[in-house]
């Protein structure tokens, strides 16, 4: 019987920013410790960037907005009272910044989509999706990506945000309600409406199985 040897987890010193708990990092960052804040940025950069990117469908905009969100969060750290987690608070800043940006940019969509990584072709969900039994079988992966983004951009900002946070990023209804400062019922109804809309938009090109 063979045992799968997993790589040992790196030992992290609790005195270095990498080994610290989020609360300690936030306390140090509030006192102006940029090394601590750098660690916080590293912990959340991918999620924040991804959320903004899926909302804007543009890499350059996502880069600017994600960076500005982190900078604004640092400047506003003194007003962070710890009522919610730092992560939720940071998300709220990014979401508000993105929605404001999109309102100003209204009707000026220009896609500069990120490439789909090579793992996508091996993703069992996508393999199943582009198989013969689904309406998407005749569409290539890149084209599917483009159509999907076009459909997403047709949704209103709050509806798109709910879909991105729930269906793309896998956040719970509770978390989304806290991030978007609304109740769970609103999140659920927005999600249902947004999915209906998306299905309608994508049905235009999808061929029946």
């Amino acid at each position: 019987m063979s045992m799968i040897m997993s790589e040992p987890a790196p030992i992290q010193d609790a005195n270095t920013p990498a080994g610290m708990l989020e609360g300690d990092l936030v306390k140090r960052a509030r006192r102006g410790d940029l090394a601590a804040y750098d660690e916080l940025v590293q912990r959340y950069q991918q999620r924040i960037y991804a959320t903004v990117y899926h909302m804007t469908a543009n890499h350059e905009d996502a880069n600017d907005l994600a960076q500005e969100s982190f900078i604004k969060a640092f400047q506003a750290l003194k007003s962070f009272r710890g009522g919610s987690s730092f992560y939720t608070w940071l998300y709220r800043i990014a979401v508000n910044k993105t929605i404001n940006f999109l309102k100003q940019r209204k009707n000026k969509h220009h896609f500069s989509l990120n490439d789909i990584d090579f793992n996508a072709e091996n993703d069992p969900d996508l393999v199943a999706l582009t198989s013969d039994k689904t309406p998407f079988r005749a569409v290539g992966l890149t084209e599917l990506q483009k159509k999907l983004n076009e459909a997403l951009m047709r949704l209103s900002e709050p509806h798109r945000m709910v879909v991105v946070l729930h269906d793309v990023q896998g956040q719970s209804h509770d978390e989304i309600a806290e991030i978007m400062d609304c109740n769970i019922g609103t999140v659920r109804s927005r999600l249902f409406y947004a999915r209906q809309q998306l299905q309608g938009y994508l049905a235009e090109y999808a061929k029946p199985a």
Partner: protein
Amino acid sequence: MNENDNNFTELKQLLKLKRHEVPPPGYFENFSGQVTSRIRAGEAGGQRTFAERLEAEVPWAVSFLRIFETRPGVIGAFATCVCLLLVSVVVHSSRADKAARLAMSIPSSTSVSGSPMASMAAPALMAASDSSGIIASTNPVTSLEPVSTLFAQPGSGSLFQPAGFGVPAH
């Protein structure tokens, strides 16, 4: 909700495709460094613009101003409200001014003793004016101005009284 979820199975699978959209390789290696260097640059040079400072210090004002950006119709409504407010303030103040002037004005032909306001305000002054010739007025400069005859005829209704220094007889 589960039934609803089942209706969207394919859509949810499709949306998972988004997870495979990734930024250029090595992008996140520099990301946090860029953020901290921008923070340092901002702190060192005090490069925060007025808008940035306003946003950090008075966020409610900025969100109020953003309403104007997103809903142009609100600008018109707000401007109309401001104009109406301004007009009503001007009208109100001019009315108040007029009323005050009316209340304060004393016709030049009316004598002081005939004015009910004056008699209520300073009855002693009225009495003095009657006897000594001082003209009472609401004007503080002229109210106690003595008439020209005050010193000319010291004996007649003068404010002065002759003082006598008699030597007591022993």
